[in-house]
């Protein structure tokens, strides 16, 4: 018999919060834990990798060009004799920086607009939703190419002028132009899904009885928003952000691959794949290394996102 005798001790279960329950469900999901592990390893590499790698990602060793993987060069070297392992790790940093900054900007814009649209409704809702639809209807790639083509040269020139005027070395690093353009254009196309999600969440939460109950207690709109609406809306948002980080990494690689993202010599998985693709028949490791890491990162975020989704929205429980 599968019955468990009921004892007073069992009735006094330790208290569990919804968050803790979700965490228990997450750690029991093997794929999600695998994803989390991959992400932690990559994040560690992104944060500390450059200090740990034996080579600088820019240092060239022209005697050892296109070397196959060995103990000295785990992933081999490229056509300038640079250590591919170090470059992949530095590319991880690029990917994480871009993904985190872009997602942060997109989530901020999306949450603010979505929450306003959902909570206030009316004409504000209509305008914001119109803006969302328009943004979503513009082809992503085209927008990024146009922004790059039209803004890159003026921005670089402006930086140059600033450097000449102030001699501040910050302005000599044209690498910032790349980043600003990548961040800006990607954030511009990434916020609408967050806005839609948050609006839908707020609309549905706004009609829940516990909001009416809170109003009946006389609580102010601000308290209701902060203590009732937001905490109940973050679950789906966390899921969406996790998936969004993965998507942002893929986007960054795709743009760099096409030459409208991060430009050489700054390593990015995308431009490394692009370089590797030209010589893959002779030196397959140049393509395989960045592609494998990109694949791993995508899979990691996707597994974690799925796991979070199952953990935060358990089906069949009340």
């Amino acid at each position: 018999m599968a019955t468990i005798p009921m004892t007073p001790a069992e009735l006094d279960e330790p208290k569990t919060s919804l968050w803790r329950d979700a965490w228990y469900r997450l750690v029991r999901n093997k794929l999600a834990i695998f994803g989390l592990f991959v992400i932690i390893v990559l994040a560690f590499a992104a944060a500390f990798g450059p200090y740990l790698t034996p080579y600088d990602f820019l240092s060239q060793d022209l005697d050892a060009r296109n070397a196959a993987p060995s103990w000295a060069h785990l992933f081999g070297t490229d056509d300038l004799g640079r250590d591919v392992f170090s470059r992949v790790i530095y590319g991880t940093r690029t990917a994480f920086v871009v993904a985190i900054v872009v997602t942060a900007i997109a989530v901020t814009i999306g949450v603010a607009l979505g929450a306003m649209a959902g909570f206030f409704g009316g004409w504000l809702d209509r305008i914001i939703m119109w803006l969302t639809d328009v943004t979503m209807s513009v082809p992503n790639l085209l927008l990024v190419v146009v922004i790059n083509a039209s803004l890159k040269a003026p921005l670089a020139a402006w930086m140059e002028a600033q450097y000449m005027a102030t001699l501040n070395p910050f302005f000599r690093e044209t690498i910032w132009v790349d980043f600003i353009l990548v961040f800006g254009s990607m954030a511009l196309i990434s916020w609408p899904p967050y806005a839609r999600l948050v609006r839908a969440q707020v609309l549905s939460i706004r009609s829940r009885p516990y909001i009416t109950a809170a109003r009946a207690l006389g609580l102010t709109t601000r308290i209701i928003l902060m203590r009732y609406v937001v905490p109940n809306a973050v679950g789906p948002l966390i899921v969406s952000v996790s998936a969004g980080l993965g998507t942002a990494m893929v986007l960054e690689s795709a743009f760099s691959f096409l030459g409208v993202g991060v430009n050489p010599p700054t390593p990015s998985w995308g431009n490394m794949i692009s370089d590797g693709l030209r010589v893959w028949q002779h030196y397959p490791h140049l393509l395989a290394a960045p592609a494998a890491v990109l694949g791993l990162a995508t899979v990691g975020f996707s597994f974690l996102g799925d796991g979070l989704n199952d953990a935060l929205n358990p089906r069949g429980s009340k």
Partner: protein
Amino acid sequence: MNAMTMSAPERLLDVKGLSIEIDTRRGPATIVDGINLHVNKGETLGIVGESGCGKSLTMLSLMRLLPNKIKVKSGTANFAGRDLLTMSKSELRKVRGGQVGFVFQDPMTSLNPVMRIGDQICEPLIYHKAMKRADARIRATELLRLVGIPSPAERLDAFPHELSGGMRQRVMIAIGLACDPELLIADEPTTALDVTIQAQIVDLVKELRVKLGMSVVWITHDLALIAGLVDRVAVLYAGTVVEDAPVEELFANPSHPYTRGLLASIPKLSDVAANRLSSIGGTPPEPGRRPLGCPFAPRCQLAEDICRQSVPPLEPLGGSGPHRVACFVAQRQLEAA
């Protein structure tokens, strides 16, 4: 004893030792624990219990319609000579909607919103009775008339959202009756309806039962509702039948402490107003947390040591007769008397 025990009535449905388990985080937990139930030919059986007692799952399991994580662990369910739980899928399909009709609680969600109601009634007729479409529509019109829907021919082409809740439940009943079932299982069919509409549906089922000579199982949480509707009542508590008796006997002489508590906690319209209702303290055990002995023992004021150690069997009160109760104390009190 009365006449019912003299001539043993023919059993249409006979469920023996049915146990149902659910998969939980802590492993499998018993929800229904060795239930014995039967329905005689032409009889109306009321199954009464509170939410979570397993009354709906029992009936769903007979049609093998249980959700994924819930499984039948043991038991047999003999229906007209065959075991519903082991018969082949093709046989089962003939039983579902054919020999056994179902009416569910919520007429809003149990009808397909994008299909005209005529088509929904015709579907079992075409499938089970191999009727031609035109014949099926004629039969569907008859069925709608039977369940008291005005101008039935025009209503065939209506969509569910064009009908009121009461009308939709009548349509559900028409679908359940479409193939002249021997058994109609109604799972809380009036819970979602207003009291005046509920009265209409109860009267309808009473009338149809006589007209069509079928057996009915009426699942409900409302003891008052079935008082005037059924012949026999089975009271379920935490996945076991605690009492099973002819309806007059059950109301006149409730023997299980749970049945007594349940009856006492219903305010009666005809009562002189009392100030406090008697209530049963505590809450039913959760699945997987069933006590060792009688499931009601933790809430029972009469519970003794034996109640906490072993499960009382469902046995005829006083040794014979149709009134059966699963309670050590009630059985002993009768012996002493």
